[in-house]
């Protein structure tokens, strides 16, 4: 397949995001025409548009970008197409922070506590990750440290569920863990956006190092790449971007994993070249999935995390079939 030029691809992805964002503002149980932008501020359609749909759409774009670029950066670093933000354990540490507020009930009385606790969880996760992986520059120590964090946070979440004071708290924790963009406010946007922007900016600086890592650790170092610095930038970038995403939406899997896979045939496999397209494609995927969960006829709105997981499994089945065809 002939690859489109980078400019054409980035323009196409940007237009897709704009179209999906416009749809995301309108679609839902109540269809809001875009002309409602010009209604009075006390008009119900205007309120739905600005108080519900706009924050949801902005967060959809931001979270999709964060997860897409994090997945591309981590796959480049690990030289493994199965790496994603969940691998480092930062997302699960953020989830543990949020779950603790639900367990203790503080999330009910002070709603802002949940995302803040998730961010604190993500920051502790980054610090532990760097501490546990130590001075060694090997990918293995980095991934092992991530596995330790994942195991630790899974145990913490399971413990919170096990010792939960009420069935209501259990239900809240499970609901939150499933991941959703529903009912997010401008405050959530204000909380997450700066961290996501900072995280994405940090990850964009790793492009050359990720390209050099195509040649392995020794090859990259011989090209003047400081691997420890690269690892620090990755941990901070993914921690900020993915941590802030989890803080406001819960756990949304597969976006970081599948987005680079979708982009590789279109931009090539050079890891640095995948970062921006993966961010844009991640935004488009999350927006599209979020529109789908809203318009799916069901008694209760589907959770975005559930929808992404349902889409992820067939995607990997297709990948497996295509790999088998190539090797036969």
């Amino acid at each position: 397949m002939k690859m489109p030029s980078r400019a054409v691809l980035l323009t196409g992805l940007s237009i897709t995001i704009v179209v999906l964002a416009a749809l995301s503002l309108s679609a839902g149980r109540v269809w809001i025409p875009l002309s409602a932008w010009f209604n009075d501020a006390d008009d119900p359609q205007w309120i739905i548009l600005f108080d519900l749909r706009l924050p949801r759409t902005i967060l959809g774009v931001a979270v999709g970008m964060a997860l897409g670029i994090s997945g591309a950066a981590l796959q480049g670093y690990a030289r493994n197409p199965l790496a994603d933000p969940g691998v480092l354990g930062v997302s699960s540490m953020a989830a543990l922070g949020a779950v603790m507020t639900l367990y203790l009930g503080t999330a009910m009385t002070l709603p802002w506590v949940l995302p803040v606790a998730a961010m604190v969880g993500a920051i502790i996760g980054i610090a532990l990750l760097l501490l546990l992986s130590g001075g060694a520059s090997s990918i293995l120590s980095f991934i092992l440290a991530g596995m330790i964090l994942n195991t630790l946070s899974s145990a913490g979440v399971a413990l919170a569920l096990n010792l939960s004071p009420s069935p209501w708290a259990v239900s809240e924790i499970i609901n939150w863990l499933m991941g959703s963009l529903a009912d997010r406010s401008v405050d959530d946007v204000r909380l997450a956006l700066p961290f996501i922007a900072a995280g994405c900016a940090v990850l964009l600086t790793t492009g050359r190092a990720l390209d050099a890592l195509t040649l392995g650790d020794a090859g990259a170092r011989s090209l003047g790449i400081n691997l420890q610095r690269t690892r620090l930038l990755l941990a901070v970038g993914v921690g900020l971007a993915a941590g802030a995403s989890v803080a406001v939406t819960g756990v949304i899997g597969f976006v970081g994993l599948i987005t680079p896979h979708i982009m590789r045939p279109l931009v090539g496999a050079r890891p640095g070249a995948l970062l921006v397209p993966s961010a844009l494609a991640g935004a488009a995927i999350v927006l599209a999935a979020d529109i789908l969960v809203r318009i799916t006829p069901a008694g209760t709105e589907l959770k975005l995390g559930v929808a992404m997981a349902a889409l992820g499994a067939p995607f990997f089945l297709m990948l497996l079939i295509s790999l088998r065809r190539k090797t036969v």
Partner: protein
Amino acid sequence: MSGFKASDIHVRLGEKTVLDGVSLAFAPGQVTTIVGPNGAGKSTLLTVLAGLRVPDRGQVTLEGADITSLTPSARAQCIGYLPQLPEVAWPIDVRTLVGLGRIPFSGARGLSAADDAAVDRALKAGGIESMADRNVLTLSGGERGRVLLARVLAGEPKWLLADEPLTGLDPGYQLEATSLFRKMAAEGCGVVVTLHDLHMALRMSDRVVVLAAGRILADGAPSAALSPEILAQAYGVDARVWDGEAGPVIEIVGRRS
């Protein structure tokens, strides 16, 4: 203080002493070949020279400056290093892979026109222009070896350090690669390679260093350093050297009993 110098290099890996007081000075415009039996310390020496491993004792200086005092980019702009088992993680095209050799020179915006011109020269020098658009992972081992060598050439290094660069190449490409090293040396580049092929070492080098058990056993002109006596000490083999049509030939007669 010009040139490239290693002084009293000691490296231990676990309990094993891999390099034991190795001192060497390299001059630009020369092809130096390091030979020695398996485990002699050749690859370790090359990683120390490339600044990728800090020795337990000793110092490497480049143009008079301690190599550890150079920034990684400054070091990479001077030294092109080809590892023994180069890895290629992703299915990228040959041109993109060769372009990775320009990373020490390129900024965040990617390759400049000057970088592109250097990549063109490297593709031509490596004789791989015709495969520029091919996926690296679909190439044979020998073809990939040529591409990876061209990747190092794209950096237009002042010093080329290549670990077993002829492995996997057919005889024709081995000769092409050795003439490339000679050409680079003629243009002022200092070329240091490790080889197992003693015959090629004898034919292409200005100087041969024989390493055994982490120490220098011989260092000098190829015919002197690769004498039957030195080969017997280094490898435990009986060998004889005779003049063939295309130059001297080393014949390994058998293992010394």
